[in-house]
């Protein structure tokens, strides 16, 4: 008992660096085994060749990367960038007024509104997208309502289009944009806005000359925090995109689960990770609190 007490006390006191490393060792080992090694494995795999029977042939080369920029796959890469960019812009445009409302006008209901924003975020995306399927489908809620009221004569094909994918992405990523926006609007010194009013500015001038420029760090953070995860999104297009409007994440999944071309899938994943690292570096550079 004595020795155990002393051993644990030595670990917890952290007077020696070794103690800190030992306390962190289980978590670090977990992350190394289940995150870092698999990631390194993917990098190694991306330089290998796919054999005739889906086996892996280790002959290092860049053929998988060359293939990723083949005319066949360029559209997928561009589409992914386009959807991520479009989602980011839409989320910023839709989310900014909401963040402004939360920061300046929500008053004592503010916390309730913020929790309200987090609830759809925490609920299963699978379930939410399924419900959008029910709403948007050919025999779905929206089409049957429009038909009944005579707005249309034949059901619209809304589901499995670029529109439904974009809708799903905006639905899911809106909180990712709004929260950083809200955070930076909270930091705008209220005195500066009042000073602008005192100096004769009207609401519009005060907003565009004071509030908006001061909230720009939040705009950049919100944009990157939306854009980066959007690049790797898998579920939205898997459910709302149908077979034609798939994104990079779905292409990767297909290489591993259907086509059994792991090296090519690994190369695509490495491209995705490379894009995300670039994005994260940009985020670090412009991080509001840095």
């Amino acid at each position: 008992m004595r020795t155990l007490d002393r051993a644990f006390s030595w670990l917890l006191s952290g007077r020696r660096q070794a103690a800190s490393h030992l306390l962190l060792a289980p978590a670090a080992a977990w992350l190394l085994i289940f995150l870092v090694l698999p990631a390194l494995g993917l990098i190694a795999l991306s330089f290998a060749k796919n054999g005739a029977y889906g086996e892996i042939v280790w002959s290092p080369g860049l053929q998988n990367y060359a293939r990723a920029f083949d005319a066949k796959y360029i559209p997928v890469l561009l589409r992914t960038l386009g959807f991520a960019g479009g989602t980011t812009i839409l989320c910023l445009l839709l989310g900014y007024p909401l963040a402004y409302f939360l920061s300046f006008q929500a008053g004592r209901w503010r916390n309730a509104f913020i929790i309200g924003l987090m609830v759809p975020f925490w609920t299963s995306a699978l379930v939410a997208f399924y419900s959008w399927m029910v709403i948007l489908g050919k025999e779905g809620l929206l089409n049957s309502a429009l038909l009944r009221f005579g707005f249309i004569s034949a059901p619209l094909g809304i589901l499995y289009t670029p529109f439904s994918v974009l809708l799903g992405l905006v639905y899911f990523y809106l909180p990712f944009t709004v929260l950083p926006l809200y955070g930076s609007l909270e930091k705008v010194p209220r005195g500066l806005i009042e000073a602008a009013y005192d100096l004769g500015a009207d609401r519009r001038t005060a907003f565009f000359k004071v509030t908006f420029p001061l909230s720009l760090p939040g705009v950049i953070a919100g944009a990157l925090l939306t854009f980066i995860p959007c690049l790797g999104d898998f579920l939205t297009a898997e459910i709302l995109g149908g077979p034609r409007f798939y994104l990079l994440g779905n292409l990767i999944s297909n290489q591993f689960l259907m086509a059994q071309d792991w090296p090519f899938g690994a190369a695509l994943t490495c491209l995705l990770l490379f894009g995300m690292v670039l994005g994260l570096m940009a985020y670090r550079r412009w991080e509001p609190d840095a």
Partner: protein
Amino acid sequence: MKKGRGLALYCAALYAFLYVPLVVMTAFSFNDAHRNVVWRGFTFKWYAMLVKDAELMGAMLTSLELAAAAAAIAAALGLFASYAMVRHHAFKGRDGYAALLDAPLMMPEVALGVGLLSFLVRAGYELDFGALACAHALICLPYTVGAVRARLKSVGNERLEEAAMDLGATEWIAFLKVTLPLAMPAIVSGSLLAFTVSFEDFVTSFFLAGIGIVTLPIKIYSMMKFGVTPEINALSVVLLAATFVLLGLNAWFSSRSRESARA
């Protein structure tokens, strides 16, 4: 204040957009019709069908076991890691550890899924429940670390530990008698978040669940492939309700955690 009212209306519309799918699904899960679009009366029969479906109940049990295992592992790993991160004086490699601990949040789920899939298969490891639990513990880890780290950072705790040690307790006794009880609300709330993350996870399980393992989200997905049915609505509502309960408990524990930090 006309302008302000316009903004409030706009925000109400945006919230409506966020809640429409949840409301629609819940409403139709009580609808006595096979097709979703027409309301034919109130019924519980879809829920009754769920309970009778043995396969589904099996999936539910798998998900619960998985989430419990993942949350327990993530809580244990997270407790010691965050203790060292917060309490210990600057040590070499601390920033590296911090980046590593947050990495699962940054990694796209697809990359994590295919990375683990190829790694485990090439290492000759069977994709069984244990493998999936380990992967879930990984994605849960940032949540337990985040909750416990925030709690340990509140200054009051450290003084209490010092007081205990001034009164003759060793670090270990001070940890057991002071730190652990004080950190408990955060450990519980972090574990509840971790449980929620694991219970709802679809993407990681999608890549790693071998043939034998069916979690609730995987079951929902495979039912969706056969088309839209009222049972899926009911099942989704069950998943939603579970999430709400877990998040409510989490909010309760984290508010207790903040209150006692102030006291």
